[in-house]
């Protein structure tokens, strides 16, 4: 199966986001693939504020069912989110549950003026009323598969299809 070209999607997102990101815009990536994409977008857009990163393990809605995630990294939002326009970045948008958890976590840092969702790929099949204002592409993933983002040693991004 031909997967979308992550590098081309990323370049396209940079073009489209140029008008949307001002000097005061904050950017936050969601671990792990989202932070890779966010690092790239943050650099190419030349954003002034340092990049934030969220590990949403403490906000997951399946904690009671599945327990705490085995490896939790520290979330870090190195700027004041109060009153700020935020770009929230993830690699693959699917059920919407991760984005809901990320928004809940962001509001524990303060009250942003707005949150704009950016995703490299929207694979559909949403379970919550959430949509990405900026999606690199839409791509239907076959049943039983997971779409993941990889980053190689040279920093190049590529999509990969795994068994779920």
């Amino acid at each position, binding site marked *: 199966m031909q997967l979308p070209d992550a590098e081309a999607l990323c370049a396209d997102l940079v073009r489209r986001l140029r008008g949307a990101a001002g000097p005061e815009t904050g950017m936050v990536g969601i671990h792990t693939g989202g932070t890779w994409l966010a690092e790239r977008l943050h650099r190419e857009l030349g954003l002034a504020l340092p990049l934030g990163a969220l590990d949403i393990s403490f906000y997951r809605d399946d904690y009671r069912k599945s327990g*705490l995630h085995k490896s*939790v990294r*520290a979330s870090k939002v190195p700027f004041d989110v109060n009153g700020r326009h935020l770009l929230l970045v993830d690699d693959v948008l699917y059920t919407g549950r991760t984005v809901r958890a990320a928004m809940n976590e962001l509001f*524990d840092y303060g009250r942003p003026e707005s949150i704009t969702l950016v995703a490299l790929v929207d694979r559909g099949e949403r379970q919550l009323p959430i949509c990405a204002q900026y999606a690199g592409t839409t791509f239907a993933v076959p049943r039983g598969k997971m779409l993941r983002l990889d980053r190689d040693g040279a920093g190049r991004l590529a999509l990969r299809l795994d068994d779920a």
Partner: protein
Amino acid sequence: MAPDGSRCAWTMRNPQLNDKGELQHLLTLEGLPREIIVRILDTASSFLGVTEREVKKVPLLRGVSVFNLFFENSTRTRTTFEIAAKRLSADVINLNINTSSTAKGETLLDTVDNLSAMHADMFVVRHAQSGAAHMIARHVASHLHVINAGDGRHAHPTQGLLDAYTIRHYKKDFGALVVAIVGDILHSRVARSLIHVLNILGTPEVRVIGPQTLLPTGVESLGVRVFHDMRKGLAGADVVVMLRLQNERMRGPLLPSAQEFFKYYGLTPEKLALAKPDAIVMHPGPMNRGVEIDSAVADGTQSVILPQVTFGIAVRMAVMSILGGN
């Protein structure tokens, strides 16, 4: 034993782990798999940042009821468990058992049954009797979790974990460390838990320093080097852990006097200078200034006694959130 050997398998199993090998209770660090300890320490480091935000809470334990059962007085440990549970959004109920039903003659297990009937999810237990938390853990229904917050002279696992966290924070790697634990080892569950966790994490040299009367017989079997001369024991140490003199647990005279103890085993700047120049000084609290530690050391640049308290809350959050999800 059953013909299929099932009873044998049951008795061999670590009572802290569920049938998937996950942590169900935290009773002691002895025999705990290294990966579980490392996971607790890693998770704790992710909780540290939570307390620096506008909202110092995460929603993990919403709707979970944590009962603090303190059969022995402790303001500090109870408070840190309470703060940890509240920062995880749990409901916390503190029971001061000294003034409650136990004083009227109710047994420990009857107390626990009554609280279970009130839909407790987690018990944090401190008791003067070694093994009390184990007994409760064996007794309760399988969805309940028990954390030992100190049982007699036996164990104080969250203290051992926060000590290990503190050492890892300042020294990074356990692989080349000399850790010296000084003072009343005999009555100290803190020392026992720390020795176990340091061994599990691969610390090459753990020393215990104290007078013969305050060292348990056969302490060498825990894998430690014994020193009676503090100056020799401190030489080259990376970490110095001072223990409180546990006067309340002493039966009969084990020491001539507090002054005499300070002279031989109190940590002064002059004795600390025998350790490595970058050695850190730890103390589980509460401190007796002028008995086991000089104020100049307790308040000095090498002291990490207050960071220990901060790390302790993150470590207890990690333990509760891992147990609560298993």
